[in-house]
C-alpha cells in the first residue's frame, strides 16, 4: 500500500501509528487521573486528621471548663481546690469604672529613649495606623504604654456600638470581608498588600478569631483596633469564639501576651477581656447579607441578639453570673442553685433528632479519660432525659447518651429561662457549624453550639428577610466554601493553617449587587515552590506524625482494647480488629485501614498486627524522664494542653511560676478530673525533675519542656513557634506575577 512519495509515506505511517498514538495518550491519561484521585483522597484524610484533632482539642477545653465549673459549684467555699481556680470565675470583680481606669492607667508608664518602635498619639491619625502596620512588618513591638492607651480608646469606642452592625454598600463601595486570622500576621499583611488597607473608600469587616494559635495575635489586634479608631464607620469587627479569655489560656494568646509584655501583660489581658466582651456579635450588609463568626441554630433570633447585654458574656462558655448590688453599690457574685432542669429542657427542645452527620457519628464522649465525673449530676440528667423520652418520640437514640450533659454542665446561677436562651443564642452564634442534612443538633464535636442544616438556613433567611450568611470558624482548603445551595459561605483567611501548603486563605468583596467575589492567596514563598504532590506529601507527613503521637499517648487504653480482641494473648490482632480497637479509643472517625500502612511499619503476617511491636515503634522517650512511671508519662502527654491550661489558671499573678504547694494541688485536681490515682510520691518525682532552683517554685515552661510535652513543630495545640515567612519574602512579592 502507499506510493513512493515521502509525504504519503509519512501519512501512511501516521495513520497506522495514530491508533497507537491514541492508545498511548489514553494510557497516560488514565494513569494521570488515577494519580489525581489518589492524591485527593490522601489530601482529604490528612485534612480530616488535623480537623478531628483540632476539634477534639476544643471539646477537651470545654469539658475542662465545665469540670472547673462543677468544682466551683460543688466544693465548699473554703476548700483548697476551689480557691485555686475561683479567680477565673470571678469575672466582674469589685470595681467600678473609676477603679478600672486607675487599674489600666498607662500614664506613669515611661517610654525609654532607646525604644525604637512606633510612637502613637491620640486621637490616632491615619499615618500612625499605617505606620503601625509597617512597624509590625519590620518585627517591631509596640510599647506597653501605647498598647494600653490604644486598648482603652478601643474599649471606649466599642461600648458605644450596637450588638449588630448595620452597614451598606452605598456610593458603589465594595465591602471587603475577612475570616479567621488566628494570629497569622503574614496573611493580614498579604490581604492589605493585595487589597489595600482600610479607608473611607475601602471598608472592611473582620469576622472574628483574630487571636490564638499564630504567634502575632496581639499585633493583629492592635492593627485592627487602630484602623477601627481611625475609620470607625468603615471598619467592623465581629466577635469570634476565640475572643474569649478562657479559650486563650489554652490556645496560646495568653502566653503570647505574657511573653511579649512581661511587666504589663496581665493588665493588658484584663483589658482585652473587657474589649472582647464588647465586640459586636454580627454585621448586616444592606439588610440582606449577615456576617457572623460561627453560625446559627434553629432558635437564632436577630431581634433577641440585638437586645442582649452582650458585654456580660465575658466568656461564651459559661452563662453570666447573677449580680447583686450591696449597699456600697459594689456588685458581688452570688451562686444560685443549679437549674439543671431548665437547661436540659432548653436543650431537649432545641435538638431535633435527625440523621447523624456524614463520616459517622462523632461519639467522642466515650473517651474514658475525659468522661463526665459527676455521678450526682448524671443521675439528675438521666431522670430528666427519662422524662422527656417518655414525652417526645426520639428518632435517633444515640443522641441521648448521658455524656451529652457535659454541654449542659456549666449551669450555675442561671436565674431564668430567658437568661439561658440569651446565652444559648450567643453560644450558637460563635460556635456552630453547618451540616449537609436537614435539622439542628448539638455540636458535640466542638462541645458548643450546633450543627445546622439547609432547612434551618432557608427558614432563618426567610424569617429575617436575608439572602446570604457569611461565616468563618472552619478551615477550608480553598479558603472558602459555599454550602446550603450557596446560601451559606464559609470564609477562612489563615492560609497554611495546619501546615505549610495545607490550605489557601480567602477574602470576599461585596458590591451593591451583593454578589460575592472571592480572592484567594497563600502566604509564604515556600508554598509557591512546592508542587501539589510535595505539598500534600508534606502536610500528610505532618498529620501522620501528630497522629502517631496521639496514638502513643493513648497506649494504655489501646492495649486494653487490643487485649479484648486477643483473648489468647498471642500479641496479634487482625486488621479489622485493629481498626475497630483504635477507633473505639481515639474517636477520631478516621479511615484507619487506609492509614495503617503509614502508621504501622513493623512487619505483620497474613493480615495481622503485632501490637506490642507497634507500640515500640511509637514510643516517645527521653533520658530525663526515665524514672517516671510510664503510664503517668503517657497521661501527661495526652493531657498536656489541659495540664498547661490548669497551670496557667493556677498561676494567678501570671508570673510563669507556681508554688510547690499549688503544684501538688493541681495534681490532686487533675487526678479527680481524670479519675486516676496520682500518688504523692509520683508528684514528688515530677517536681524533682525540674527543680533547679530549690526555692519551692516550679517554672511552668520548664516543666512542660522537661517532659517533652511541648513540641515546637506541632501547631495544633500551642500555636506556631516559627514565623512562616520573612520580610525578604514579602519584598519578593512585589515582582511576583502570581499574586
Amino acid at each position, binding site marked *: 500500500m502507499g506510493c513512493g512519495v515521502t509525504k504519503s509515506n509519512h501519512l501512511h505511517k501516521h495513520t497506522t501509528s495514530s491508533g497507537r498514538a491514541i492508545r498511548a495518550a*489514553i494510557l497516560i*491519561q*488514565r494513569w494521570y487521573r*488515577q*494519580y489525581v*484521585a489518589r492524591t485527593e*483522597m490522601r489530601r482529604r484524610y490528612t485534612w480530616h486528621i488535623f480537623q478531628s484533632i483540632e476539634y477534639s482539642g476544643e471539646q477537651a477545653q470545654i469539658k475542662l471548663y465545665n469540670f472547673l465549673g462543677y468544682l466551683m459549684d460543688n466544693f465548699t467555699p473554703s476548700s483548697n481546690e476551689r480557691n485555686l481556680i475561683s479567680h477565673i470565675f470571678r469575672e466582674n470583680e469589685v470595681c467600678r469604672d473609676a477603679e478600672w481606669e486607675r487599674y489600666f492607667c498607662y500614664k506613669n508608664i515611661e517610654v525609654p529613649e532607646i525604644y525604637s518602635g512606633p510612637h502613637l498619639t491620640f486621637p490616632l491619625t491615619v499615618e500612625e495606623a499605617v505606620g503601625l502596620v509597617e512597624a509590625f512588618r519590620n518585627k517591631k513591638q509596640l510599647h506597653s504604654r501605647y498598647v494600653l492607651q490604644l486598648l482603652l480608646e478601643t474599649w471606649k469606642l466599642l461600648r458605644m456600638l450596637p450588638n449588630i452592625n448595620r452597614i451598606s454598600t452605598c456610593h458603589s463601595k465594595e465591602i471587603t470581608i475577612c475570616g479567621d486570622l488566628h494570629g497569622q500576621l503574614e496573611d493580614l499583611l498579604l490581604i492589605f498588600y493585595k487589597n489595600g488597607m482600610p479607608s473611607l473608600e475601602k471598608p472592611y469587616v473582620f469576622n472574628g478569631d483574630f487571636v490564638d494559635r499564630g504567634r502575632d495575635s496581639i499585633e493583629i489586634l492592635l492593627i485592627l483596633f487602630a484602623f477601627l479608631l481611625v475609620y470607625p464607620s468603615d471598619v467592623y469587627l465581629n466577635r469570634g469564639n476565640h475572643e474569649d479569655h478562657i479559650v486563650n489560656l489554652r490556645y496560646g494568646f495568653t502566653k503570647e501576651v505574657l511573653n511579649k509584655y512581661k511587666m504589663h501583660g496581665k493588665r493588658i489581658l484584663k483589658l482585652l477581656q473587657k474589649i472582647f466582651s464588647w465586640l459586636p456579635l454580627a454585621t448586616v450588609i444592606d439588610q440582606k447579607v449577615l456576617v457572623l463568626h460561627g453560625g446559627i441554630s434553629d432558635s437564632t433570633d436577630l431581634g433577641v441578639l440585638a437586645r442582649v447585654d452582650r458585654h456580660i458574656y465575658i466568656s461564651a462558655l459559661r452563662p453570666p453570673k447573677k449580680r447583686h448590688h450591696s449597699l456600697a453599690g459594689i456588685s458581688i457574685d452570688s451562686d444560685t442553685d443549679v437549674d439543671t432542669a431548665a437547661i436540659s429542657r432548653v436543650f431537649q427542645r432545641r435538638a431535633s433528632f435527625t440523621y447523624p452527620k456524614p463520616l459517622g457519628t462523632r461519639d467522642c464522649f466515650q473517651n474514658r479519660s475525659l468522661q463526665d465525673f459527676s455521678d450526682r449530676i448524671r443521675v439528675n440528667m438521666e431522670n430528666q432525659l427519662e422524662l422527656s423520652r417518655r414525652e417526645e418520640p426520639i428518632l435517633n437514640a444515640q443522641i441521648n447518651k448521658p455524656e451529652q450533659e457535659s454541654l449542659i454542665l456549666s449551669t450555675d446561677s442561671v436565674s431564668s429561662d430567658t437568661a439561658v436562651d440569651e446565652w444559648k443564642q450567643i453560644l450558637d452564634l460563635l460556635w456552630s457549624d453547618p451540616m449537609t442534612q436537614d435539622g439542628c443538633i448539638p455540636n458535640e464535636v466542638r462541645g458548643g453550639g450546633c450543627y445546622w442544616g439547609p432547612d434551618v438556613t432557608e427558614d432563618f433567611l426567610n424569617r429575617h428577610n436575608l439572602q446570604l450568611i457569611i461565616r468563618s470558624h472552619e478551615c477550608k482548603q480553598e479558603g472558602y466554601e459555599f454550602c446550603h445551595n450557596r446560601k451559606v459561605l464559609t470564609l477562612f483567611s489563615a492560609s497554611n493553617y495546619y501546615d505549610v501548603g495545607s490550605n489557601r486563605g480567602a477574602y470576599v468583596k461585596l458590591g451593591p449587587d451583593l454578589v460575592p467575589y472571592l480572592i484567594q492567596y497563600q502566604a509564604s514563598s515556600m508554598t509557591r515552590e512546592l*508542587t501539589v504532590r510535595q505539598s500534600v506529601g508534606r502536610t500528610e507527613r505532618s498529620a501522620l506524625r501528630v497522629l502517631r503521637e496521639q496514638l502513643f499517648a493513648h497506649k494504655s487504653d489501646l492495649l486494653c482494647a487490643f487485649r479484648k480482641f486477643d483473648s489468647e494473648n498471642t500479641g496479634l490482632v487482625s486488621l479489622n480488629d485493629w481498626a475497630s480497637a483504635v477507633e473505639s479509643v481515639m474517636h477520631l472517625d478516621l479511615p484507619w485501614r*487506609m492509614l495503617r500502612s503509614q502508621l504501622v511499619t513493623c512487619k505483620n503476617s497474613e*493480615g495481622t498486627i503485632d501490637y506490642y511491636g507497634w507500640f515500640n515503634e511509637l514510643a516517645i522517650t527521653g533520658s530525663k524522664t526515665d524514672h517516671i512511671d510510664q503510664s503517668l508519662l503517657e497521661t501527661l502527654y495526652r493531657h498536656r494542653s489541659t495540664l498547661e491550661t490548669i497551670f496557667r489558671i493556677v498561676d494567678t499573678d501570671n508570673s510563669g511560676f507556681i508554688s510547690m504547694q499549688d503544684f501538688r494541688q493541681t495534681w490532686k485536681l487533675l487526678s479527680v478530673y481524670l479519675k486516676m490515682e496520682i500518688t504523692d510520691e509520683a508528684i514528688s518525682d515530677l517536681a524533682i525533675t525540674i527543680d533547679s532552683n530549690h526555692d519551692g517554685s516550679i517554672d511552668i515552661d520548664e516543666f512542660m519542656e522537661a517532659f517533652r510535652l511541648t513540641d515546637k513543630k506541632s501547631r495544633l495545640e500551642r500555636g506556631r513557634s516559627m514565623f512562616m515567612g520573612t520580610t525578604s519574602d514579602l519584598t519578593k512579592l512585589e515582582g511576583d506575577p502570581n499574586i
Partner: protein
Amino acid sequence: MHSHTEFTPDQIEDFKEAFGLFDRVGDSQVAYNQVADIMRALGQNPTNKSVNKILGNPSADDLANKRLNFDAFLPMLKEVDAQPKGTYDDYVEGLRVFDKEGNGTVMGAELRIVLSTLGEKMNEQEIDALMAGQEDENGSVHYEAFVKHIMSV
C-alpha cells in the same frame, strides 16, 4: 486476557472504608459521578468511557443524581480490575511512538498536544501538573525516566 483474581475479605474491607469516605450525604451510597474516582483511589485506572459503560451509559442527569451502594459497587470494581492496567513496558512502548529520533526522548510540546487532543483529553492545568519538572532544557522528556517516575507515585 481475563484475570480471575478474587478480592480477599481484607481487601473488601479496605474498599468499604474508602467507599464510605466518599459518601458526602450519609446514606451509605455514592453518586454515579464519583464512581470513577473511587475506583482510581482504590488502585484502578479505568477510562471514563469504560466506567460509564459499566454504569449503563448514564445520562448527565443520572451521573449527578443517581446513587449506588457498596454492594452494587463491588462487582463493578471487579469488572474494572479484570481489565489490563498497563505495565511499565506498555507505557514505554506507548511513548516510544512519539520518539521521532529514536533516542529515548520525546518532545514535551508534542506530548502536550497529544494529551490535549487525543483520547480522553486533558486540560492545560492537568498537563502542566503532569509534566512539572519533566522537561529538560531542550524541552525534551526522557520517557523511560518519566514512566519510572509516574509509576512510583
